[in-house]
């Protein structure tokens, strides 16, 4: 039994099926990659798991409990944290206060919550920017802030939505290190990503979405060889490379 089980989840917007009959599961401590072309339903999948959208059909089991119908804040309390693809910091608060606010979910004592927020900022490497406004940060640092805020609610499952997009190669390596270290701390991770290099090196298992359907699931190597995946997403050049 996995920590998260998604069973035949369907979500449509008007006539468009953003997710159709998607089924997969994630095991405790696993790092699952989600890939697929733009508009294939990756972010919708995250929004459905975290309660921002309610699926028409299907069930989502977290720790053996069906979480469909719960509100986003209830799901966060249960231990699922997320980052947003387009970063959404609390823009008028400092970097430190962003993380502090999230820490207050598990630690209502202000003093201890401050200590916790400091630890997390140190962990993701934002200590020296703690008093900066989110708008003053580089793209890479804004992504780190998203991760820091998600970690501050002490999740058991972390959903990362394109945390590596738009980063320089050197920044990608650093952030990947961070993600692996989070996994090593026992937090299960699902990451939506376009950076194939990252997916290939980091994930144990990958699922591929196309037009809302899950067209493949397997190890990164299996996925890279899958004809349907190559046709829908990777392109012929990828196989050559």
């Amino acid at each position, binding site marked *: 039994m996995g920590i998260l089980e998604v069973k035949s989840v369907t979500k449509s917007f008007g006539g468009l099926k953003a997710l159709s009959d998607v089924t997969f599961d994630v095991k405790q401590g696993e790092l699952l990659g989600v890939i697929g072309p733009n508009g294939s339903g990756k972010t919708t999948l995250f929004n459905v798991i*975290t309660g*921002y959208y309610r699926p028409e059909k299907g069930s989502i089991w977290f720790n053996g409990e069906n979480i469909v119908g719960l*509100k*986003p*804040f209830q799901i*966060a*309390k249960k231990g699922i*944290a*997320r980052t*947003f693809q387009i970063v*959404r*910091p*609390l*823009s*008028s*608060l*400092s970097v*430190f*206060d962003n993380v*502090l*606010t*999230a820490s*207050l*979910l598990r630690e*209502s004592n*202000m003093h201890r*919550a401050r200590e916790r927020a400091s630890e997390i900022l140190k962990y993701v490497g934002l200590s020296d920017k*703690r*008093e900066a406004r989110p708008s003053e940060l580089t793209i890479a640092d804004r992504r780190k802030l998203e991760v820091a*805020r*998600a970690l*501050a*609610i002490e999740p058991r499952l972390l959903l990362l939505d394109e945390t590596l997009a738009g980063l320089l190669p050197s920044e990608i390596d650093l952030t990947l290190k961070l993600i692996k270290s989070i996994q090593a701390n026992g937090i299960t991770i699902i990451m939506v990503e376009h950076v194939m290099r990252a997916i290939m090196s980091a994930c144990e298992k990958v699922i591929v979405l196309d037009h809302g359907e899950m067209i493949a699931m397997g190890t990164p190597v299996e996925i890279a060889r899958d004809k349907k995946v190559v046709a829908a997403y990777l392109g012929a050049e990828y196989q050559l490379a």
Partner: protein
Amino acid sequence: MKRQQLVLRKSKRFNVFLLVTVILCLVPQLGVGTYILRILILSLVFLIATSAWCLISGYAGQINLAPTMFFGLGVYSSALVARHLGLSPWLGLLIGPLLAASFALIIGFPLFRLHGAYFALATLAVGEILYYVMVNGVWFSGGTVGLQIPFTPKVLFVDFNDIYSQYYFILVLAFLSTYILYRIAMSRLGYYFMAIRDDEDTAMSMGINVLKYKEVAFCLSGFFTGLAGAFYSNFLLYVEPSMAFGITPALTIVIMGILGGADAILGAWISAPLLTFIMEGLRLLFGAAGAYDLFTLGILIILIILVIPRGLIRLVTAAKI
């Protein structure tokens, strides 16, 4: 380093608050007349309402254009308790805040289905509805003529024949109210309110029940605004719809809030006395009939938003003292 500066800035704000309180404590000893004291009493009433407005509108980001919906309930509860139940109008100080907070809780459910400007417009509508309830409910509210409040000379240790006694009473009330609101704003609640103001989706992802905390902010704001209103009518000894639910007290509170700094509870300690004296001075100069005070209020809104959008308190605390 920056952290120290921030703490320093916050403690500076608190020093401003203490300084103004000390000055206000000393004012009666300077031999100023009853007239000045009356103006100061009125400014302290609005100071409480303004601090409470800052909590819901400055911190939680839900712009309430009619804080008078709470203020007016406080104003009328003193009068209604006295006229219809034959009790001391000073019971209004207890009933007013509770009534206003309960009203906030109930009206919050439909209001918080709206966001941004739509929420703000709806608050204005609620204020207007309450205004016309009082105008038309002649049998209980006295309509536009209003109600007189019987004078109670002494309640507990406060002697209401004595303006000094009244003055210190409202000063203590204002000090305690803003101190409590300030502590709330610095606590976990304050951070949750700001998270909701900045981004509701992000707030939810942090496990924050957005509707619940909006309601909490609204109720707290209602409670203290109702308290201010209940004292107001006990001081003036009469009530009528426009002083309670009218547009002038509503705008006064909103502008004092923005002038002091909407996201700084203690800003009201600068803006409320200042604005009260400015408006009173204009009324003296031009008379109340021309509504020059309101004219000035309008100009002030534009100037504040253009020149010091984040409020006077930041000008004061940014100065190198």
